[in-house]
């Protein structure tokens, strides 16, 4: 069996890249790994959303309680969330009875359709964001992931998270409302184990994504996270091992990114050049660094140019049209 599979694999590798990329669906196999008493993490692939990974690139967290299992971030699609729920059940022995979504991005939120929206919770800003942008995200995910997304629909949580202590099934959690990676970023801490679940405010050895980012807010959120006592940290993307350095690493990347973009605009570089600039050696172990730099150039560059480049016109010769 193994042998046969390998030969299939090498046959697939012989196919030209363009043809190989046409993978229209597949089977998810989320594997929970216990990181503390009653806490499991399912790691996403440290890759871009692509047909090869079915969009399963974000980390999810599973917490056992007496009332049932708490799932944080149900992932990118209906099918993924279903397999995740089954994996959570076999890990904890209890079905998922509460779901938290850390923020609105589709790799974290679109799996909500596998659950009753009455058991799903998010910050009010995330709920508004999903109502506003959810369909657009779903369109984009279907375009890239095709069959992986089958049956996936935008579902909006009915539960609004209020910051502060939460008690559920005899388990104590604390919730914080932060922002910066998106307009509303939920942070949870599992009190019995001191596990801090940061969502995408923290990336670890995987470059931060910035499509809805406010860099100043994000840096402030990281400063707040750095002083929250915790024993373990689950980043939104990247490994849990060694993640004590992840807050500083994320902050370091954002600082560098902000100043690199301003320097590029000031030097008159165009966007393609700015996306090709050297990335400091200290980020050598950070996956997807070039990819996320180029995405960030797209997110910030036109705005930065409008802000930084001086006006050189003295008005047009012809009268302005009236509208």
């Amino acid at each position: 069996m193994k042998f046969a599979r390998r030969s299939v694999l090498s046959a697939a590798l012989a196919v030209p890249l363009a043809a190989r990329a046409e993978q229209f669906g597949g089977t998810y196999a989320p594997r929970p790994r216990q990181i503390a008493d009653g806490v499991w993490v399912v790691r996403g692939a440290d890759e871009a959303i692509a047909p090869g990974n079915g969009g399963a690139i974000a980390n999810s967290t599973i917490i056992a309680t007496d009332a049932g299992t708490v799932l944080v971030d149900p992932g990118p699609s209906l099918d993924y969330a279903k397999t995740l729920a089954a994996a959570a059940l076999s890990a904890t022995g209890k079905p998922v009875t509460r779901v938290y979504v850390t923020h609105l991005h589709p790799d974290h939120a679109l799996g909500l359709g596998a659950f009753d929206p009455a058991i799903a919770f998010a910050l009010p800003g995330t709920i508004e964001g999903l109502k506003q942008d959810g369909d657009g995200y779903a369109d984009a995910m279907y375009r890239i992931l095709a069959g992986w997304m089958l049956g996936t629909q935008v579902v909006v949580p009915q539960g609004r998270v209020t910051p502060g202590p939460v008690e559920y099934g005899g388990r104590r959690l604390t919730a914080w409302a932060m922002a910066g990676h998106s307009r509303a970023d939920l942070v949870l801490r599992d009190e019995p184990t001191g596990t801090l679940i940061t969502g995408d405010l923290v990336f670890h050895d995987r470059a931060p994504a910035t499509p809805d980012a406010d860099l100043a807010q994000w840096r402030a959120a990281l400063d707040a996270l750095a002083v929250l006592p915790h024993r373990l940290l689950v980043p939104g993307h990247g490994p849990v091992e060694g993640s004590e350095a992840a807050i500083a690493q994320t902050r370091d990347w954002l600082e560098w990114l902000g100043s690199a973009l301003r320097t590029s605009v000031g030097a008159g570089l165009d966007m393609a050049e700015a996306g090709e600039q050297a990335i400091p050696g200290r980020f050598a172990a950070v996956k997807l660094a070039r990819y996320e730099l180029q995405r960030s150039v797209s997110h910030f560059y036109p705005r930065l140019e409008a802000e930084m480049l001086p006006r050189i016109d003295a008005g047009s010769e012809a009268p302005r049209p009236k509208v």
Partner: protein
Amino acid sequence: MRALPALSFLTQLAAAAPAPAASALVQDPLGSPMWQFHRRRLFGEAPVVFDGGVKVRFPMIAEDQHVFPVEVDARALAGVTRMIVLADLDPIPYPLDYRPLHAEPFVATRIKLDQRTPVRGAALAADGTWHLSGGWVDAAGGGCSAPPASRVKGDWAQHLGEMRGIRRPAGAGATRLRIAIRHPMDTGLVDGIPAYNLETLTVTDTKGVSLADLGIAGSVSEDPAFTLIVGAPASEALTVTARDSNGLVFRGTLAADPGATGGGQGS
């Protein structure tokens, strides 16, 4: 294996009619379904080569199909008189047509993509040969057929023609310009919004000599931005003149670089 019959066919052709139709036989390395159409329209019977003479740079992902950066660099070629940016499958397939009159053959801008398409740069060298390169770009739909942000916001007319720019020394007697102009760049492909776009942009020196002459189509992104490298020293003031499809003229001036005599200002 198939090279032999093709070669002998070429030889026969060359014997019968030496010059014409040579480019018709050039295989498009990108396999674009529109290649022959664009080749005939743009290059006619001129020879076409796909080589490293022209370098096309764009990001690995079309993060925003309304704002896709493209840079075309033909500085490896001698005597380039014309450069074209080509997006084969776009409804407005030639966003830029650049004549670097007294400028380096280098241009960068942002374009709209309406679907997955080849994006290429073409440069006409002194010997009459067009050099091309590029690649496929996977883009979500609607870059050309969704309204621009300023139409949605409704403030486009308040900012129409606002021009921003900087100049930086780029070696002896050369100046890099980055110019951005507020314009909705309506493609005409959005219901109820007729085409309305910048059509030309020229850079002139104090003697009125045109250094760079850009032809611009509606598939250049809203609020267009351009990078050019013109043959003017830092001591030369430069004028940027743009004209749109309603005949409005927008003008900007980049004053001589005061710190330039000392070898250029840092950036």
